[in-house]
């Protein structure tokens, strides 16, 4: 997650390394060593150590207890819920991202910059508040909450009143909160990319007699596929790892509404550290794979530009 749409990762120009510039624009050796030491110390304390700690703590008592953590039925149900949540939230935001990028990058209209700012809004909102606002809409005290449970509501049909719909403290709330926190990922990756690509290829396709959908699938999508992939992996990492927002709407019902990050919290608070870190190691692995894929896509994009 980064700032507003003006700083997409993919269009970030990476540095040509210039250690061997002319002498006048080089720092003295001791400064270079000082900077290097400070930078690596910073990376070591804040990035490498936590990552290493997750895996060592998970394997502290050997492989037996480590693998035992994954056979726990509650863990498996948490894993299923996490996968389900991501499987709904990521495609939903993918479709939205493509639609938003299409209208913003390909057309001119009033209030466009306002729309871009609004799309970025969820990144500015605390995860806890992201959960809270859904409680305010769908919770029992909320706007729609009173109508969702089974009951005798005027205005609604018999069928609807017979349904007992749970959104908060149930799976739909978790999915909604996850969609909210991962809302901008795909859109913000695609908008600058498609703006930079322009419309010429689409015009050419239309001139040659392609229909709108043909143009989209055969011209636009191949052009943006790496940006799409990039947005999707970041969106997925956040969707599977979200804690604050999901924690507010989940209700923490073991085996029912616990996602993996929430399951980690429960295990940790029960002093079941090995299991907590074992589950964490799975999510850390996901993070590492995400970073790896991301780096590969960036190299590819760089090669494409060069």
């Amino acid at each position, binding site marked *: 997650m980064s700032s507003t749409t*003006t700083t997409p990762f993919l269009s970030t120009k990476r540095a040509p390394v210039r250690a061997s510039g002319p002498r006048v624009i080089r720092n003295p050796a001791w400064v270079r060593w000082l900077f290097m030491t400070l*930078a690596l110390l910073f*990376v070591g304390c804040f990035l490498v*150590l*936590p990552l290493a700690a997750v895996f060592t703590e998970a394997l502290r008592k050997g492989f037996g207890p480590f693998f035992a953590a994954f056979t726990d039925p509650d863990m498996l149900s948490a894993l299923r819920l996490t996968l389900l949540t991501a499987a709904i939230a990521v495609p939903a935001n993918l479709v939205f991202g493509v639609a938003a990028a299409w209208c913003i*990058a390909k057309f001119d209209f009033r209030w466009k910059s306002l729309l871009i*700012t609004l799309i970025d809004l969820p990144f500015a*909102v605390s995860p806890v508040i992201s959960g809270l606002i859904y409680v305010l809409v769908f919770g029992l005290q909320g706007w729609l909450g009173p109508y969702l449970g089974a009951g005798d509501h005027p205005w609604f049909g018999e069928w609807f009143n017979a349904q007992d719909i749970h959104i908060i403290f149930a799976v739909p709330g978790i999915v909604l909160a996850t969609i909210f926190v991962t809302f901008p990922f795909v859109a913000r990756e695609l908008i600058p990319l498609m703006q930079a690509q322009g419309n010429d290829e689409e015009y050419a396709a239309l001139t040659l007699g392609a229909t709108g959908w043909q143009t989209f699938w055969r011209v636009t999508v191949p052009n943006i596929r790496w940006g799409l992939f990039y947005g999707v992996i*970041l969106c997925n990492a956040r969707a599977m790892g979200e804690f604050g927002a999901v924690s507010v709407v989940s209700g923490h019902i073991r085996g029912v509404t616990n996602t993996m990050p929430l399951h980690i919290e429960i295990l940790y608070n029960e002093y079941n550290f090995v299991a907590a870190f074992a589950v964490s190691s799975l999510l850390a692995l996901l993070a590492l794979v995400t970073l790896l894929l991301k780096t590969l896509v960036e190299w590819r994009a760089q090669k494409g530009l060069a």
Partner: protein
Amino acid sequence: MSTAVLSLPRFRRRVLPGFGLSLGFTLAYLGLIVLIPLGAAFIKASGLSWADFLTAVASPRVVASYKVSFGISLLAALVNGVFGGILAWVLVRYTFPGRRVVDALVDLPFALPTAVAGIALAAIYSKNGWAGQWLEPLWTKGVHQLAVWLPGVDWAGCLGKTIAFDRAGIFLALTFVGLPFVVRTLQPVLAELEPELEEAAATLGANRWQTMTRVILPELMPALITGFALAFARALGEYGSVVFIAGNMPMHSEITPLLIITKLEQYDYRGATAIAVVMLVASFVLLLLINLLQKWSRRYYRV
């Protein structure tokens, strides 16, 4: 940026299809997922009387949590500004083995779930952890020593007695989550910085220190401030990594997002919403500032 608009006639015809469909879907989805739920918070808060609102957002425990949240977020963002700046410099200017790995690792806080980060940091910096077993006695002694040298200030109350499960732990977690922002906003600017600029400064007789502070640093300032503001905004709302390492003592190491959750668990929806609105306004103001900053820096670089 090119557009699909034929420019001449007043009633413009769009060449590419799908404008209505994509804009309609975008607005509907945005409205349903983001705007209406966010509006719910403001409408719920507006149902409170002014006096109730003030009691909810300005009670001593809430004010203490603002101080903790804003103060430590600011400190973490400052440290990220300094060290993130150095890290960006090292990544752009120097070659060393493993540079690409370090560069990729910078995004770890974006990819690692916050809960995992929280328990990992707690494990490292707690009394029995790898770093904590060395640092915690030092920290406790240091705080004690400060109180001897500079009495009159409540050092233990301000800095906390330990690292993990106290205020220093909050600082560690918030520094972690804000780490990529400064690095990632600075990197492209640093990469585009022309060596001629530094050469010119050197030719005109500036020594390296003068070049760094008077030529390079001003060039980097807009990006640096943007990265700082982004890190600050992120730290302000952070919850997942902090709760595991903060100790969560009311009035001392309780962050505002945690207080919102506490109120919710006590079914105090109005109190929670009122505090949430304060935080929302703070983050919207920050977002506005960041947008202005980026406009400013873009204009700055185009010249």
